[in-house]
């Protein structure tokens, strides 16, 4: 037993009294909390700098995706814009609407899929649901709508370009 007086060698090896040990632990915890606090402040600074001075690059110009007849009603086509690694998905709904969204859930970046005949896009990771016509969140944990691209037609060809949002209403 540690308190046995016959062998007190451990007291030489670890010469800290119980009361001191308790205090050291709580002091270290308080300092660690302060370190975490500093880390969070730095993180907030990074977010502020990134948002204000290095905004995300927008899609430049128009990009060909596929021909109209390659995509059946209720079908989807994944594509990547040249020069970017962001995956997108082009959806042709059963009502013949064409929509293009980033194929990354806004929750934890899982791939999202169009659920045929439902008019909804599903994120299978945490059961998140988006409206296939607007990209708005319908249910689940995603905090933001899916980023969207404009779909335009040139004859039978389908092109995408940066989505032009309507002026914000206050």
């Amino acid at each position, binding site marked *: 037993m540690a308190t046995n007086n016959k062998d*007190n060698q451990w*007291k*030489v090896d670890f010469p800290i*009294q119980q*009361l*001191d040990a308790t*205090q*050291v632990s*709580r*002091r270290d*915890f*308080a*300092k660690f*909390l*302060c370190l*975490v*606090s*500093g880390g*969070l*402040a730095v*993180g*907030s*600074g990074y*977010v*502020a700098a*990134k*948002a*204000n001075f290095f*905004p995300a690059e927008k899609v430049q110009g128009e990009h060909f995706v596929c021909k109209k007849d390659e995509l059946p009603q209720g079908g989807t086509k994944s594509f990547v814009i040249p020069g970017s690694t962001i995956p997108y998905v082009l959806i042709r709904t059963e009502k013949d609407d064409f929509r293009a969204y980033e194929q990354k859930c*806004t929750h934890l970046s899982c791939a999202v899929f169009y659920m045929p005949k439902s008019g909804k896009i599903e994120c299978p990771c945490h059961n998140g649901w988006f409206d296939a016509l607007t990209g708005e969140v319908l249910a689940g944990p995603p*905090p*933001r709508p899916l980023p969207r691209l404009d779909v335009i037609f040139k004859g039978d060809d389908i092109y995408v370009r940066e989505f032009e949002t309507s002026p914000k209403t206050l």
Partner: protein
Amino acid sequence: MSNFREAQNQAHPNKTSTLMVALIVVLILNVSIQIWLLYTALNNALNENVDIAFPAFLASLGLFLVGFGWLYFMPGIIRNKKVKYR
């Protein structure tokens, strides 16, 4: 002339214990608010509402400085008489 720190170091262990707990509670509260600020700033920045990010950073920095200054009041290690084991 004695100051607050000297008096605090001479305080009874029960008092220093209470001070320590109060200090940690306030630090946890600060960190919780900072997590909320970071989460809000990030979500809004990704949603193209960048106006929130900078005030959130200032608030977070302010809370960190408050927490850092708060450590001044941390009780010192209790010094007992050295016991000779041999």
